[in-house]
């Protein structure tokens, strides 16, 4: 069976992972309630989209 010849150093591991970082989600601001929301989607906080469209009024 083939086996590793040398120990895999921590430096090697972290160098490999140097490019694995996650990037932040691009968020936009809801023009109605100024909460951060995903672009092109209904605001989860206030249910507004494109000016009108009060969809779900989650808070009674």
């Amino acid at each position, binding site marked *: 069976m083939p086996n590793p010849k040398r120990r895999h150093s921590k430096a090697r591991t972290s160098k490999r992972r140097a490019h694995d970082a996650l990037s932040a989600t691009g968020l936009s601001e809801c023009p109605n309630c100024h909460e951060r929301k995903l672009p*092109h*989607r*209904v605001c*989860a906080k206030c249910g507004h*989209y494109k000016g*009108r*469209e009060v*969809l*779900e009024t989650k808070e009674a």
Partner: protein
Amino acid sequence: MTLSGTDSGGLAPHVSERFAMRHRNAGYKLGRNTSHRRALLRNLVTSILLEDRVVTTVTKAKAARPHVEKLITLGKRGDVHARRQALAYLLTDDAVKRLFETVAPRYGDRQGGYLRIVRTGFQKGDGAEKAFIELLGAEKLLDEKRSKRAEARQKRREEMEKAMAEQTPAEGESEK
């Protein structure tokens, strides 16, 4: 006109494209076999025409849209043959009636683009993106429908609270 499952349905192909192969025109399979997919889409389209707005996944909304558009075109034609063609696809007579009498007349001078898909969030469980698909020009009707539903809910809640208030002291006595 065909309303089959995966056909992406270019209506009048441009002359130079007339003999082009159908590469990259696959459409949506939705993880179902043909009959299952056809049934699903017929159900969805019927519901959209009856209710004006349907909450579903983005992919299903996108798959249903061309079918609804084609039916509205039939509705605008308005003759007996168009009616029979619609009847062959839609599942209920009510949906056909609503299509020809209420929905289609709304779009007299509009050439397609009768529907709006708005992304609303993500589904619990499988994380699928949810959206609603609605007919343009139905906003007022939908607002009315929603306020009516909210009223009914409020009424029911009040009745429930009343019933609970009456029940609690009675239960207290029986425990003694």
